[in-house]
């Protein structure tokens, strides 16, 4: 495997609640290789979204160290694309202007990214929607626009926080395929692909998309299992019906339901 892009070493996170300190994450050590697609699954409140924000430098870890591309993360790192559960588009901006927002926020010349934005719209099947307002698009299309926005500055790292969680089941499966296509599963070599850290509730989604699935235990979130998904790429719809796919789903499901006895994995 290529050298790692993200390195977490014994990361812990304790925050102060009204009732006292709450330990959200404990002893998380994890390496993600460049170009790797890694999913984090776990029960609600296990801190997987928090972990994503720690990697982004948006929240400080209270213990351990986080490095991205060899640099220790102490403040927000600009070299990432973020996609959230909601599309979080600016209601008053057209789709094109929403996609160009990162360039403006990062203080770059907006016009230099115009062609790139058009290219992304094309790739996401949103051509013809550039001048529409977000409310004129369906939820799935808004989420595609949000993915385009995350890709605008061509970041090496993509952090996705339950990006398809608010979509209906059919749109969700479509989006998974779409994401793999945009990720370059078919036409890019591994080193050219973006590194993706993908948080989800859905075991099936995690297995379908990922090279590795990291299963987390309930609060305080720890790594309960780290499974390599050795399914052939490009992934296809038929794969969902295969025995290997079913086996992996079952294994992760068992790890999740055995969680109380799983204990600490260090």
């Amino acid at each position: 495997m290529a050298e790692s892009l993200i390195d977490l070493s014994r990361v812990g996170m304790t925050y102060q609640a009204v009732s006292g300190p709450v330990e959200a994450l404990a002893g998380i050590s994890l390496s993600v290789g460049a170009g790797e697609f890694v999913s984090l699954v776990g029960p609600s409140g296990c801190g997987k979204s928090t972990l994503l924000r720690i990697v982004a430098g948006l929240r400080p870890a209270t213990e351990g160290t986080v490095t991205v591309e060899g640099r220790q993360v102490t403040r927000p790192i600009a070299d990432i694309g973020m996609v959230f559960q909601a599309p979080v588009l600016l209601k008053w901006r057209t789709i094109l202007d929403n996609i160009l927002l990162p360039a403006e926020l990062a203080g770059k010349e907006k016009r230099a990214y115009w062609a790139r934005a058009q290219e992304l719209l094309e790739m996401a099947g949103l051509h013809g929607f550039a001048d529409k307002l977000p409310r004129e698009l369906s939820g799935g299309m808004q989420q595609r626009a949000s993915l385009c926005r995350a890709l605008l500055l061509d970041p090496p790292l993509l952090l996705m926080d339950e990006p398809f969680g608010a979509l209906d089941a059919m749109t969700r499966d479509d989006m998974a395929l779409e994401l793999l296509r945009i990720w370059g599963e078919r036409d890019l070599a591994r080193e050219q692909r973006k590194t993706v850290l993908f948080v989800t509730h859905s075991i099936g989604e995690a297995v379908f998309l990922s090279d590795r699935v990291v299963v987390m235990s309930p609060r305080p979130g720890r790594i309960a299992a780290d499974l390599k998904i050795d399914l052939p790429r490009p992934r296809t719809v038929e794969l969902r019906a295969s025995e290997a796919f079913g086996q992996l789903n079952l294994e992760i499901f068992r790890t999740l339901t055995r969680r109380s006895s799983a204990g600490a994995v260090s």
Partner: protein
Amino acid sequence: MKIPALIRQYWPTVALFVALVVVWQLAVTTGIREYLLPAPLSVWHAMWDGEISWGQHLWATTWEIIGAFFMAAIVGVALGVAIAWSPLLANALVPFLVFVNTLPKVAIAPLFLIWMGYGIFPNMLMGALIGFFPVVINTAVGLSQVEDDMLDLGRVFNAPKWKIFAKIRIPNALPYILSALKITATAAVVGAIVGEFVASQKGLGYVIVTTQSSMNTSVAFAALVWISTVGLLLYGIVVLLAHLWAPWAEGID
């Protein structure tokens, strides 16, 4: 909107209005005394009566209302931005503003007379004082009602605070501000008239005060119609601006 759609939407309004005027005219012709309730027609005549210099009065009151509106809008937005910008300023300003807002403004009007004498300015100030508070609150709320994820997006790119304000918070607050300005438009009218009641030598409120002694109710009614015309016009302009500037927020209020 197409003409048939316009008719479909507004015919009940027009019908009710016409019916009320007809009932009013009938009521007056069947016995209510003219000095208690003047007939719509006499009000109409009074509105165009050359003996009352309506132009001068309308001019004075309109200026007061416009001045009050802009003062309230500018000061209100500035205070709202200050509150949303800095917690320190918020802690300093909010209790003070709440205190000012709880004062019955009418009770301050006589003091304005002592401090500033007769004139258009104190009446403007009265209107501004009544109308600025909703603008402050809505501006501050609109500036802070931004999704956390959107703010995280700003932080990821290390965007400076002013940029987050300019590109995200202020456009987000715009519909809230415009919504408050509709209230301010009405409040500016109230303030101007209250000011004129207490101290004035011209203006539509002044006209109403002078009709009290002469029991000339048709002139009082005429002044009322002129006041509401100015008020409606201002309100209409704000609604139109909201439609033009924040079309994405249609249906928020």
